[in-house]
């Protein structure tokens, strides 16, 4: 579904992402972990086309990631949930439905708003929403086109405990539906239970890429490390 080959992104002569390659098969849920400044967000922004790649190749569903065909296949939930100040929640849904060409979108939109307890706030303007609510709108907007591939950039930040639980459940549901998901996060325990594979980044490079079972095995057979301990071990400074 997603293939990243030798991706490099250089800012001011410094490589934020350096020659990384990985792929995501259809229906796979992959967690992208790493300390601050590891290059997770840059990688994700390169993939969704918000920033240019300096080198490398990215394809989504066999199409170049910048093509309109590729964009029909994925949704992106950004780290900071900006919404239009003067559009209501419902109008955001309407806007996304048009942008992605979603037919008969209203029942789906209602269902999503209900799930995220936004159904009674449909007429609220974007500017009147708290950060957590904007995050929920952002997630609803991403799910409305029913994409095959979802990119979540730190999706839990700003959400209340109930919304976090809902999002975890949502990941499970999406996984059951065969969706492919790449989640960048700091919250290891949030991803541990649902991710099939973990990519660990540090200093712009991938230093760990394995199934969660193998990592767990490695953790248990090693010195009894948990996934969190293993993550800290892998990303610690020399």
């Amino acid at each position, binding site marked *: 579904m997603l293939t990243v080959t030798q991706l490099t992104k250089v800012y001011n002569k410094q490589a934020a992402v350096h020659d990384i390659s990985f792929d995501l098969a259809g229906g796979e849920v992959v967690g992208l972990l790493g300390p601050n400044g590891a290059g997770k967000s840059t990688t994700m922004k390169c993939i*969704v*086309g*918000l*920033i*240019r790649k300096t080198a490398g190749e990215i394809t989504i569903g066999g199409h170049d990631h*910048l093509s*309109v*065909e590729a*964009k*029909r296949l*994925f*949704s*992106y939930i*950004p780290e*900071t*949930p*900006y*919404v*239009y*100040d*003067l*559009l*209501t929640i419902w*109008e*955001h849904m*309407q*806007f*996304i439905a*048009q*942008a*992605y*060409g979603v037919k008969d979108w209203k029942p789906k939109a209602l269902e999503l708003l209900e799930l995220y307890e936004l159904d009674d706030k449909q007429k609220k*303007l*974007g500017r009147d929403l708290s950060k957590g609510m904007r995050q929920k709108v*952002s997630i609803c*907007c991403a799910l409305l086109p029913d994409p095959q591939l979802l990119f979540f950039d730190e999706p839990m930040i700003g959400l209340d405990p109930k919304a976090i639980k809902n999002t975890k459940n949502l990941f499970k549901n999406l996984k059951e539906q065969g969706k492919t998901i790449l989640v960048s996060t700091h919250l290891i325990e949030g991803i541990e239970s649902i991710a099939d594979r973990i990519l660990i980044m540090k200093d712009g490079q991938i230093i760990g890429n394995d199934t969660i079972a193998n990592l767990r095995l490695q953790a248990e057979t090693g010195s009894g490390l948990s996934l969190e301990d293993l993550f800290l071990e892998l990303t610690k400074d020399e």
Partner: protein
Amino acid sequence: MNEFRLLLKKDFLIFVNNLLLIFRNPLRLIPYGIAVGYFVFMYSKGIAGSEQVTSQVNMDAAGEVDVTQQNIIGGLTLVALIFFIFQLYRATKNNITFFKMADVNLLFPAPVKPENILIYYMARSILPALGGSLFFLVYSGGQLANEFSVDFVGAMFLLLGFTLYFFLIFPLRFLIYTLHTRFGILEQLRVGVLVLGVLLSSLILIPGFMAPVFWEGMFAWITSPWFNLFPVVGWSRGMMSYFLEGNWILSSTYLLLYGITYYAVVKLVIQYSGHYYEDVLEATQNNEDRLEKAKGTKEVTEDAYSLNAKKQLALPEFGLGAKALYWRNYVQSSRQDLHPLIGLYTSGMAVLGIVLAGLGHFDWFSHQVLYFYLLFLIFFYFMAGIGRANIGDLKKPWFILIPASWSSKLWNMIKLDLLQTLIFGLLLIVPSVLIGDYNFWLILLFPLGLIFAYVIGLGVNLIPQVGLDEGWDRILIKPLMIGGIVVFGIVPTLFFSGLLFGVTGKFVFGLGAAVLGLGFLAAILTHVTLDILKRLEFKEL
């Protein structure tokens, strides 16, 4: 997928929601009502008096060079040129954006064509320029209604002249940045803009030096008709010349030039911008931050315009308690400018004053130019004082937490500003007085005026901010409070100052009265500020 239809629909919904917001809170209409009332009044007054004015035109002066008119047109052209060149130069530093962060998050990843989005937003950016120009036209029309008669075609050319001038700057800036990201020719573009700036400066300096009196000749070239051919600035002036000359063919030709240029710019931008999302990301984020700061939902940072941000410092401590605030400001200022006490920008302003004094000494400029400059600087420091209340220590929790008296905290918070102001004032006024043979009392009065204006500005903003709670209190009482300070403090001061200047004809007396009045006002406001400061509370942003 029709991107234009999608975006039009989105903007229509935003427009409708904006209207609904206004109707939900009709008090927002009050300023508009006052503006409409004002325009109606000025127009009706203007129409009544328009007939008498036409007969007062001095026909004897026809054929002579009207220096006053030349200087007015030249001055306006110069301002437009400076703004234009500055905008082009800024394009070599950072990009502009037509987008919001919501577009970045929701629209950019969507299956839409980037070039169509860009075309739509670029065309839409004419709306603010058009709105601003329309407001300006209606405003100046109200002012000038009894001086000139403006017909519909004249009004349209005026409107288009202003609108297209402001409008075209943004696509041009976008193009410059695009060419830079595409071909990496930043240095060449920057040098090009600088060379253009030097050439245009020569167009003012050379005729000025050639004329018997500098200020009578300096605008001779840029006010001549051939300068109308200069892109953007000249075209707008040429288009608006319908107002004076009534030649619609000429004005339409300039309009056509604008049309062709816009078409070419859009074509070039689309051809070279490619996948431009990254180019606008930073500017969009910055705009969003600025908007949030203006709304008060985000703290105003102090790192803007930092010249020396990465400077390594090893300053000793200045003392305990509130002195830490002074130390912090000192460190901050060391990173913000080349020297914590004497900055680059302020040195530039001081040099400008000294140059004006020198030119006045050689009769190239009237002495009054320096006087105006000094008054402008006093106003500038008043505004700086207003701005100081919004940033820095007051918004940080440790201003409240530091175990020291409030007066000591306030003093240490503004101590560096006052020192900088004093040094700047002396740097400017001492050489100016010596070079230009001005009154020696200015050496005392001008720095004091700057300091008092700064303290008043600080108090004017700080008192309502701390003393009044959020909500209607603040919205309704703040203007009343500021109005009171202006009406009962600043206006009488300016009145007596102007009166003294009018009677004696000496600037130093006028400034003396102003400084005395401002000093009283500053003392009262400082007292109130100290009294109210203990009510300061930290607002979680």
